[in-house]
């Protein structure tokens, strides 16, 4: 057999194929997110989900998400977001928790502020929960905007008015009653809109020759 370009090409292809045939491709889980990526997502705040967006999902009865309340059980019993499940942060890695958390769903972590939910996010994110978010501002902000939404100024743009109207309208549903006092251990900042990416449920891609 002569050393034509074709034979060299086919030969190296077969060698590569043999290498791959004996290599443990299926055992390699690059799924693990690197520290660099965790920092990146924390830095650009793409791990936050806004209260209004969560409220929309509740109202739409979106089946593809879970709200996980990581405060202690007493706080949860006093008041919790409709449909949320209580998993106090100390039981985050208990075996029964593993059964509750559904990595196929969008998971939203809720604490009083951002801090504890952010810590839980950091712990859970490397464990294969890809669509994992922190409720921006936590319960303090949630109770604030839905029980007593701040009225926008006269010069407010349409978007701000819509947000205000939505908060007012959604308030009774989100709060149950209007007399809930925000539990407060963390001071929260007024959330600003952040760029955030959500995995689309299933994106149709067309391809062809």
């Amino acid at each position: 057999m002569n050393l034509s370009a074709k034979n060299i090409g086919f030969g190296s292809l077969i060698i590569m194929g043999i290498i791959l045939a004996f290599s443990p491709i299926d055992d390699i889980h690059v799924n693990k997110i690197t520290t660099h990526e965790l920092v990146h997502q924390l830095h650009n705040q793409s791990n936050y989900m806004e209260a209004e967006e969560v409220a929309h999902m509740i109202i739409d009865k979106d089946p593809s998400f879970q709200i996980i309340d990581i405060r202690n059980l007493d706080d949860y019993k006093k008041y919790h977001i409709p449909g949320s499940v209580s998993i106090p942060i100390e039981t985050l890695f208990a075996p029964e928790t593993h059964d509750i958390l559904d990595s196929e769903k969008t998971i939203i972590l809720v604490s009083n502020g951002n801090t504890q939910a952010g810590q839980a996010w950091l712990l859970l994110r490397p464990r294969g929960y890809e669509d994992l978010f922190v409720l921006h501002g936590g319960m303090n902000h949630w109770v604030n905007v839905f029980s007593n939404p701040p009225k926008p100024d006269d010069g407010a743009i349409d978007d701000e008015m819509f947000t205000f109207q939505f908060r007012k309208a959604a308030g009774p549903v989100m709060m149950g009653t209007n007399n809930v006092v925000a539990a407060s251990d963390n001071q929260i900042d007024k959330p600003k809109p952040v760029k955030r990416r959500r995995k689309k449920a299933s994106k149709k891609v067309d391809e062809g020759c």
Partner: protein
Amino acid sequence: MAPFYKFDYFSEGTGFIIALLLGVSFGFWLERAGFGSSKKLALQFYFRDMTVLKVMFTSIVVAMVGLAFFTLFGWIDMTAVYINPTYIWAQVIGGLILGVGFVVGGYCPGTSVVGAVTGRIDAYFFLGGALFGMFIFGEMFPWVEDLFLSGNMGAIRLPELFNLSTGVVVFLVILLAIGMFYGGEWLENKFREEEA
């Protein structure tokens, strides 16, 4: 780590620009391979010019071996890459219809665009026909919806289908591709001789 888009390294807008660049270069190389000519494409079905088969298998093998090694090196997370779900009956019937159109018209959807931009009139007719077909399909969708969704196997890959490891499937597809190359050239010689 790839896929870059899924890991937020660039925005949707950047993604569109990259898609545009990829699309343009795809069209360019199709044209360079001679796929802007329906004559060349149609010869495939008479076994006289197996370029289409060779180009297709080259791209399959290059992409497959590349992704396999990238996975091995931990450069790409294949679980984050979108895989088209398989609707086996819908795709068998759709593939047959597309094949008939390919033989009759001498183009497939991508190459007809390449033909059209290089000024081939038959490609314009082909494109018009394809658009008309899409319109008809859209209008009668309620009647074909059951067929459209038939044989759903999910986002399945050959390793899962045959219950083999990914590496072994890669090796088998490489052997298949090399076999196709030699088989294609054998057919080319045979049918050219008959013609002569």
